[in-house]
């Protein structure tokens, strides 16, 4: 099956998943108690029936459910995710405005997690049962057991409150209006705490996975063959053991994407990082259905595309997969 055919198949699958996401969240949120009209009524402090009725009409909330779904699907197809009830702005604009911040944070976390995790895992696997190996295992189990949001709060407590080394909140120093390199430096400084908090959780899982994968591969026959061929031990470790251990890592990276988005809701909330994580939380508490639905769709599409990338990477890493299903 040629690679293009494989990608086409995967894109169809992504579309199916996104459609399922839209359908599920649409049904779920439409059936939820309370709707947009009550949102705005509640917020403006003063409201009466006339005001509420006009709002419902304006946002088409009085039409029957299937009609609402049909109109909604039509608009989504055109890329219009509706307007946010609370912010009175197109949902897509709000999300796209905040998405880069989340992508920046998640990318940083993923890179640190994969690099750190593989390096730690490989080091632990080289001397199984040694002190180094045991400490990596316990350390990774530790980070696996720590609630992410609490880890974030501890980071704020230590590095911002007590040591005051790093800014605890936001993406930039407020009102400083730096530009160019200064601004990049400022953002980087702000990204350290949330980024590391998000990364440590996944670093732990990558370290564990790399360690177990490498120990398992080290027992395989072809590693014995390599040694029988008189290959230097370091080359055996890199070219034979690590090369094969990477395969499960690639699929694991794919699975991590959706968990990463979930994780960033918590970390962004603790650090007031203006990403779609905080947006999702605000949308849920303010019952802003279109915004929440929009975030679902955008994250689902992103994660699906990321999975497509990892699938292709997997097929490159493991020639045994003839780009089959």
């Amino acid at each position: 099956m040629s690679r293009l055919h494989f990608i086409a198949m995967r894109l169809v699958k992504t579309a199916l998943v996104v459609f399922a996401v839209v359908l599920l969240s649409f049904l779920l949120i439409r059936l939820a108690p309370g709707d947009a009209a009550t949102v705005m009524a509640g917020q403006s402090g003063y409201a009466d029936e006339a005001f509420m009725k006009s709002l419902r009409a304006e946002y088409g909330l009085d039409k029957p459910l299937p009609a609402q779904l049909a109109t909604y699907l039509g608009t989504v197809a055109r890329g219009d995710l509706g307007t946010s009830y609370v912010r009175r702005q197109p949902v897509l604009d709000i999300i796209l405005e905040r998405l880069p911040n989340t992508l920046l944070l998640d990318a940083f976390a993923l890179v640190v997690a994969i690099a750190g995790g593989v390096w730690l895992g490989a080091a632990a696997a080289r001397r199984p049962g040694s002190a180094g190996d045991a400490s990596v295992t316990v350390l990774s189990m530790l980070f696996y057991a720590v609630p992410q949001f609490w880890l974030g709060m501890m980071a704020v407590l230590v590095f911002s409150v007590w040591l005051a080394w790093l800014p605890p909140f936001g993406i930039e120093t407020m009102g400083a209006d730096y530009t160019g390199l200064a601004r990049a430096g400022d953002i980087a400084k702000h990204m350290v705490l949330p980024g590391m908090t998000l990364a440590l959780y996944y670093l732990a899982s990558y370290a564990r996975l790399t360690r177990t994968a490498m120990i398992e591969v080290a027992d395989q026959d072809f590693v014995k063959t390599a040694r029988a061929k008189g290959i230097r031990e370091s080359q055996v470790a890199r070219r034979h053991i690590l090369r094969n251990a990477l395969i499960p890592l690639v699929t694991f990276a794919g699975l991590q994407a959706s968990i990463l988005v979930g994780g960033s809701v918590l970390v962004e909330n603790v650090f007031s990082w203006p990403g779609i994580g905080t947006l999702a939380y605000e949308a849920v508490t303010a019952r802003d259905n279109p915004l929440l639905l929009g975030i679902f769709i955008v994250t689902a599409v992103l994660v699906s595309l990321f999975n497509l990338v990892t699938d292709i990477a997997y097929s490159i890493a493991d020639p045994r997969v003839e780009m089959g299903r």
Partner: protein
Amino acid sequence: MKKFAAVFLGRPMALVGLAVFAAIVATALAAPLLFARGPFTIVGMPLLPPGAPGLLAGSDVLGRDMLVGLAYGARISLLVGITSTLGAVGIGVLLGAVAGYYGGVTDDLLMRVTEFFQIIPSFVLLMVLVAFLQPSLNSTVIGIALISWPQVARVVRGEFLSLRGREFVQAARTLGMRDAAIIFTQILPNALPPIMVVSSMMVGSAILTESALSFLGLGDPNLLSWGSMIGGSRSAMWVAWWTTVLPGLSIMVTVLALNFIGDGLNDALNPRRGR
């Protein structure tokens, strides 16, 4: 079975985990005996530091005894962790078994559904579920169970797929055993080890998820759990560190203990390494 005990007890970390977990469950159950007053009783001024008179762990933002709060908080966290895992394992085993054993359409269908749950950010879905069902203990448990059963289903399906081909299963069919008997007496007992490992890890992650929900204010308002204690202390943290540090440590220790047990189970029950 005795070989399993030998290997499991042989692993120091698993033993420590079991001891710590048992201690936590014991304190949670014995809380009414240990402490005269309930977790909500106001005992003094808020935000008194640990070691203040009569307050080993200090007082929280409402002037309640933190130590009593931590003991009663354990109840909710453990209750949610265990019940939601049981729910998830129940659904997961059922669907995984059917898909793994019969294969074909049911298998493909289940794989599509589990893949869907992998794609969608599960925590965001959980937030909506809990908000939709109005935050309460039930909605938390149902929500967590709904987003974690696919993980179990995938493991069970994998086990059933491999065990279905084993010769003792084919022998059972030639001996005339009905499908149900084969599933429950032949395959399921052999699929139990990985299920137990996944379940023990899942109790830990369920506790973490519950604490995250309570932290975001989506937990049950009438109950005191470690997560809600941390959630309530987001501002207080700046003037009273113990209101955040102590509940967080309790969660970490409990989940760590569970992970150690899971690791021990994995080694003891995993034929390859255990033998």
